């Protein structure tokens, strides 16, 4: 307005950056450079303090030898890495079944008809029980309990049993995630679908679920990061996955560095997943802010 043009009237003259704007941007650049140097300095200070505190501790030489031995690391790493392949396999198979089981349970809980009452009750019972049992306990129960039943055709392979235990445990969590997603869809969306004469099933399939699933992707990925780690619990049943391999090496060499190797592999898998989850969550947040007109 200072140059005399009225607001809302576009003048033909192209925009030339004013002196004031140039000064303003220079000040903003100065401030951002300052923030970066302050952040760097404080990070360095914290890191140096932590390293000094740890290395100055009386037990550090001993810890360095048992947990950070390069020789033991090189020795164990190939076996641990091979074992980690089994973790990935367990995780990938379990993930598929967890999704199917979780979604099924969530959908069953939403059924209205009285015919389905027993199924609905079963679904509630399932989530209540399996969310309550510690996963490691479930691995023991399924891993040693099922073969002990000596049922015809029941699996006795520890990897399969481990996967079943993980699926039962995570299926209950994921069912709740799906259910919260379904509940989060505004009732007006159902009303609109029903007013178009879509049945309950069609409303779920075409209107509610597509929106609900999009909404729960970040919490689902979070549960999967957790499932990746818990694939190590199958170690208690004996299959040679990463943690078991590390145990074997540690027991043989009296050195714990193989555990560090296993830990690094798990981190290498979960960190990218965590960043991806953050990215999706941020995108969802942006969309929700932008899409204010939705019902």
């Amino acid at each position, binding site marked *: 307005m200072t140059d005399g043009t009225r607001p809302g009237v576009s003048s033909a003259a192209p925009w030339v950056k004013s002196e004031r704007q140039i000064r303003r941007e220079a000040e903003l650049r100065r401030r951002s450079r300052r923030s970066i140097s302050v952040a760097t300095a404080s990070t360095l200070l914290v890191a140096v303090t932590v390293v000094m505190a740890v290395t100055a501790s009386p037990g550090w030489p001993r810890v360095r030898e048992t947990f950070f031995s390069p020789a033991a690391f090189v020795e164990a790493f190939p076996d641990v890495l091979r074992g980690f392949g089994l973790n990935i396999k367990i995780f990938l198979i379990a993930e598929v079944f967890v999704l199917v089981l979780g979604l099924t349970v969530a959908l069953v809980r939403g059924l209205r008809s009285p015919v389905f009452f027993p199924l609905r009750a079963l679904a509630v019972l399932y989530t209540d029980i399996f969310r309550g049992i510690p996963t490691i306990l479930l691995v023991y129960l399924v891993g040693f309990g099922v073969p002990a039943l000596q049922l015809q055709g029941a699996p006795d392979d520890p990897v399969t049993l481990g996967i079943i235990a993980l699926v039962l445990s995570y299926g209950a969590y994921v069912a709740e995630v799906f259910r919260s997603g379904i509940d989060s869809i505004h009732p007006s969306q159902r*009303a*609109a679908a029903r007013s*178009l*004469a*879509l049945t309950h099933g069609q409303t779920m399939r075409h209107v509610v679920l597509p929106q609900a699933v999009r909404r729960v992707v970040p919490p689902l990925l979070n549960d999967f990061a957790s499932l990746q780690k818990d694939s190590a619990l199958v170690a208690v049943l004996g299959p040679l996955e990463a943690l078991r391999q590390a145990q074997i090496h540690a027991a043989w060499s009296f050195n714990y560095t193989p555990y560090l190797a296993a830990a690094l592999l798990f981190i290498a898998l979960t960190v990218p997943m965590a960043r991806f989850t953050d990215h999706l969550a941020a995108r969802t947040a942006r969309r929700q802010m932008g899409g204010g007109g939705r019902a």
Partner: protein
Amino acid sequence: MSLLRIEGVWKHYHGQSVLRGIDLDVAPHEVVCLIGASGSGKSTLLRCVNLLETVDDGAIHLDGREITDPRVDPDEVRKRIGMVFQSYNLFPHMTVLDNITLAPRKVHGTAPAEAEERARQLLERFGLADRAGEYPDRLSGGQQQRVAIIRAIATRPRLLLLDEVTSALDPALVTEVLGIIRELKETGMTMILATHEMAFARDIADTVCFLDGGVLLERGSPEQIFTAPEQPRTRDFLQQVLGRL
């Protein structure tokens, strides 16, 4: 014979009576406007007609058949009734075209190509042909509401219910939505509108009904209701919303 007959309909919420024995007949091609303050029961009445709410007493007949009978399949009734909501309620994960063709394809068994053809014709007729591939959140409120109306009429309903369809819109966008409703009247569509647009109600309605506290207090031609209301409550209401009478 009337297309829709509402007989002594009652509805209670949490011990409060929202509808208190409503009687209303709607003839084919008739346009009925429901006016009244917020909470007078206009929206509830429309939702009862569409069976989104169950009535607590009385009966509603469509084409001579009672639809409030518990043995009647609500989906069969809703196939013949279209409804448009105040908040549009478009499906945000579907394009405009998919929003419109969903019910024809999934409920009425129309072939996808045919459903799309009709949707495009309707979009063309109501000036939205270039928005077919857009998602609802890319449209203005007025455009969204016009799409919602097209979605409701794409299945060729016998009766169209419009629940305060302009209440969420800027004054500048109200006109475009009212235009489409006026056009529908010309095609002979039977409609019941709950509305706060008095000038529009006066212009488009064959019958105006004034609801007050769940009672259908007065009905008549727009001329009669807007110039010579008989009930004092009607007069008060109109004075309040119009600021004069």
